[in-house]
C-alpha cells in the first residue's frame, strides 16, 4: 500500500503541476532505509535470541569456557617434532612405555614380511576409496536418472515428478541415519558409509545433472529424431556428448565434498581416517592427532587442487561457478 503510493509519480505533482523529483527521491530513499533498518533489526533480534538459546542449551557456558577456547592447542604439542613423523610412518618411538600413546608400529598394515603401509596412510586410502566409490555409484545412478527427470527429454509429467521427488528425498535424507541403519545390519565397517554417501550423491548429482540436461542444445536431438533415432540413441548421441564435460566437472566437485563426508561418517563409526582421528583426540595422543590432521589436510588440499585443475581443463572457467 505504502509502496504503491510512493512509487506513483502522479502523487508528487504539486498544485502548480510541477513534478517534485527531489521530494519523491527523498521519500523513496527514506522508505528503502526504513526497510533496511527493519530487516537488519529483525536479523539482529533473531541472532540475539539464537545466541542466547545456543548458550543456554550448551553444556558449558560461552563466557566460562572462552578461556579454554585454545585448550586444544595444548593437546597438539608432541614430545618433540620428530614424533609427528614417527606417528605418521609408524616408526618406533624413544618414548615408548608400553602404552598405546607411543606405540606407533602397532597399526602397521603389512603387505609382505617387511614392507608395510603405515596405519594412517592405509586409513586415508580407505576413506578416499569410500569417497571415490560412492562418487562413482552416485555418478552412474545420477546419470541414469537425470534424463528421466529432465523436462526436455521426458514428456510424461508423472514420471518426471516421481523421479524428481525421489532425487529430492535421497538428497535430503540425513546421511547419518542411512549410515546408522546399515551399521546395525553390517556391524562396524566402511560399507555403511559407502551406502550412505552414495545415496546422498545420487540425489545431489541427479539434481545438478538434470539441470544441465535441461540447458542442453536440442538441435542434435532434433537431427537424430528426424533420422529416426529412438530415445536411447537420441540421448546417447545427441545429448551425452555435449553434457559430459559438465557432468564430469560436477562429479569431481562432488568427490571433494564426499572426501569430507566420508571422513565425518568415519568419526561416527564407519571406519577410515575419521574414526582414528576421533579416537586419537579423545585419548589425548598429541603426536598421532597431529599426524592424522596433517595427512588429512594434505589429502584434502591435493584432492581439491587436482579436482580444480581437471575441472578447469574440462569445462574452463565455468568450473568455478558453484551450483546449487
Amino acid at each position, binding site marked *: 500500500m505504502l509502496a504503491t503510493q510512493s512509487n506513483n509519480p502522479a502523487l508528487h505533482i504539486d498544485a502548480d503541476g510541477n513534478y517534485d523529483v527531489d521530494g519523491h527521491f527523498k521519500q523513496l530513499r527514506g522508505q528503502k532505509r526504513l526497510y533496511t533498518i527493519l530487516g537488519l533489526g529483525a*536479523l539482529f533480534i533473531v*541472532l540475539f535470541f*539464537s*545466541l542466547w*538459546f*545456543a*548458550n543456554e*542449551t*550448551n*553444556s*558449558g557456558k*560461552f563466557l566460562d*569456557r572462552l578461556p*579454554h*577456547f585454545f*585448550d*586444544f592447542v595444548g*593437546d597438539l604439542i608432541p614430545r618433540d617434532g620428530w614424533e609427528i613423523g614417527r606417528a605418521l610412518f609408524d616408526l618406533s618411538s624413544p618414548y615408548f612405555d608400553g602404552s598405546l600413546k607411543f606405540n606407533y608400529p602397532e597399526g602397521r598394515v603389512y603387505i609382505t614380511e617387511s614392507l608395510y603401509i603405515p596405519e594412517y596412510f592405509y586409513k586415508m586410502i580407505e576413506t578416499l*576409496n569410500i569417497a*571415490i*566409490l560412492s562418487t*562413482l555409484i552416485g555418478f552412474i545412478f545420477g546419470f541414469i536418472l537425470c534424463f528421466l527427470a529432465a523436462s526436455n527429454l521426458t514428456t510424461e509429467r508423472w514420471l518426471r515428478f516421481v523421479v524428481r521427488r525421489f532425487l*529430492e*528425498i535421497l538428497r*535430503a*535424507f*540425513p546421511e*547419518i*541415519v542411512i549410515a*546408522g*541403519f546399515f*551399521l*546395525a*545390519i*553390517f*556391524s562396524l*565397517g*566402511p*560399507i555403511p558409509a559407502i551406502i550412505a554417501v552414495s545415496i546422498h550423491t545420487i540425489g545431489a548429482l541427479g539434481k545438478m545433472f538434470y539441470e544441465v540436461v535441461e540447458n542442453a542444445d536440442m538441435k542434435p536431438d532434433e537431427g537424430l529424431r528426424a*533420422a*529416426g533415432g529412438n530415445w536411447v540413441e537420441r540421448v546417447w548421441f545427441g545429448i551425452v556428448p555435449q553434457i559430459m564435460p559438465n557432468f564430469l566437472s560436477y562429479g569431481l566437485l562432488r568427490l571433494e565434498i564426499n572426501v*569430507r*563426508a566420508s*571422513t*565425518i*561418517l568415519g*568419526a*561416527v563409526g564407519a571406519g577410515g581416517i575419521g574414526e582414528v*582421528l*576421533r579416537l586419537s*583426540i579423545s585419548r589425548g595422543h598429541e603426536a598421532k592427532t597431529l599426524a592424522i*590432521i596433517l595427512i*588429512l*589436510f594434505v589429502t*584434502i*588440499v591435493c584432492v*581439491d587442487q587436482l579436482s580444480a585443475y581437471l575441472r578447469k581443463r574440462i569445462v574452463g572457467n565455468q568450473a*568455478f561457478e*558453484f551450483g*546449487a
Partner: protein
Amino acid sequence: MNASAMNLSTKMLTPQDVSAIKARYPDAFQRSFLKRFSTVLCFAVVAVYMIYVSWFFAIGKVFSEGNWNIAGSYLADWVSYEIRPDIDYRTGEILIEFPRFSPLGAEPDPEWIATERGTVTLIEKKQTASKPSTPSTSGSFMAPGSATGGGELSFMAPDSSATNTGANSSNAPAPDNNAEPQTVTREGINQAEIVFSNTAKVIVTPDIVTVMNGEESLAIDVDPINETVIPRDSLPEWALQKRENEKIFINFGFAGRAEIRAKEVKIMRRFFGWENFFFDTNSPYWGQSFTEVVGNVFSSQRLSENRSNISLLVDNFLNNAEWQHGDVYIKLLQTIVMAFVGTLFAVLIAFPLSFAAARNITLNRFLNQILKRFFDFLRSVDMLIWALFFTRAFGPGPLAGISAIFFTDTGTFGKLYSEALENIDDKQREGVRSVGASPAAVQRFGVVPQVLPVFASQALYFWESNTRSATIIGAVGAGGIGLKLWEAMRTNQDWENVFYMVILILIVVFAFDAVSNALRSRLIGKQQS
C-alpha cells in the same frame, strides 16, 4: 542412414572421393586411439576400479554376512510397534506377563488375547523362604499396591519375576532341593488364544501349543519339566527350529512373531502406527480420543490438582517419555540455530576479509596470498576436526557446532567472495572514482552493488546446506539433533523415534530449500531456481 543417403544422391561416391574426403578431414576419420576408445577405456577403468574396491572392502563377504533378517524388522519398526507379552505355563497354569514399559500401560488387557478359565493342575513346590504363590496375593508388578480385581492378566508369580526383565527366561527359579512337589488343583486360566490376524493365531494350553496360519496348523508338545519342545508334524515354512527339542520360531510376517519355548511362549505382536505418540501411559490423557482430550481441556474439573488442564496437556505432550517431543524440538532448534549463526558470522567475517584478499581491490600481493592461504587452511581442516576441537573447548552443545561451521565457512566464503570480487566489472568502479569519491565510497557504490546479490545468494545456499551438515557433526558431540539421532539408533530399539526425527529434519530441510530458492531467485534472477 548412410545407404539411403547414397541411393538418393544422383552421384555415387567413388573410392577416390572417399579417400579425398578422408584426406581433407583427418580429424574426423583418423582420430587418435585415445579419442576413439575413450568411452570403452573409461568403462574398463571403472570396472577395474570396482573389482579393486570390492576386494579392498571385501564387499561380497560383508554383504553375505549382513544381518538381513534384522533389517526387515528394523525397517518395520519405523512405522510400527510390537507388543510383547509372555505366556508362561511353567507352573501348569497360564500366566500372561507384559514387560514393564509395555505400550499398553500398567494393566493391559488387549482384546487380541482371549483366556479361558477352568481347573488347572499345578505342581507347586513348597518353598522354605517364601510362601507359595497364590493368585490373590500378588498385585501388579508394574503398579505395586494397586488393588486390582482383575488381577489375572497382570499378576505374576513372585518367583518368576526374574524372567520379566530379560529374554533369558530359561533361567528358571532354582528348584529348592528340600521342597516337595505338591499337586494342587484349583481354578485358573487353562487356555489362552492370541490372535495375530484373521487367519493366524496361537492357542496356548499348558501342554500343547497350537499355531494356526492360514490353512495350515501346527501342534507342538511342550514340556516345562523336561524342557522339551516337540512339533507333532514336520515344520511348515513359517516355523523354524534350530535345534531339536529347543525353541521354535514362528513368523507371521508383518503381524508378528512368536517363540515357543519349553516354559513359555513369547509373543511379538506387531501393530501399524506409532504407539502413544501424544501421551505416554502415565499421562491422564493417555488412551483418550481426540474429542475426549478437547473436552477435558475445556472442562473445569482438573485432572491434576495443582495445574490447569491445558498446561498439563502441553507438559504431558512435551515430556512424553517414549517420544520426548520437547527434547527433540529443542535439539532440532539447536541444529537450525547452529547453521544460522555459524553461517551468519562466517559471512560477517568473510565479507571484509574478501575485499582484502581480492587482488584487484587490495593491491598488495603479499596480503592477498596470505589471506587466500588462510581461507584454504580454514576450509581444508575439515569441519569434523573443528567440531571435535570445539567440543573439547565448549563441551557438547550448539556452541561447538556454531564454531565449527563458522571456521569452515569463513574459509569457504572468503574464497568464493574474493573470486567473485576479482570477476567484477571495473567500469562502475572507475565511474565512481572519476567523480572524486573516497576509497570507501568507491567500494560501497562501485563494487558492493555488483556483488551483493551473489554474496547473499551464496550465503543462503550455504545456510541451507549447513542445516544438513549440522545434523552430521552433531553426532560427534557438536550438539543438535544429530547426537539424539545417533543415540536413538545405537540402541537399535527406537527406530520409530529415528523416523520421527528424520521426518522433522526433512520438513525443515525442504522448507529451508524452498525459502532459500525463492529468495535467491529474487536476488539474482530466475536462472538459479
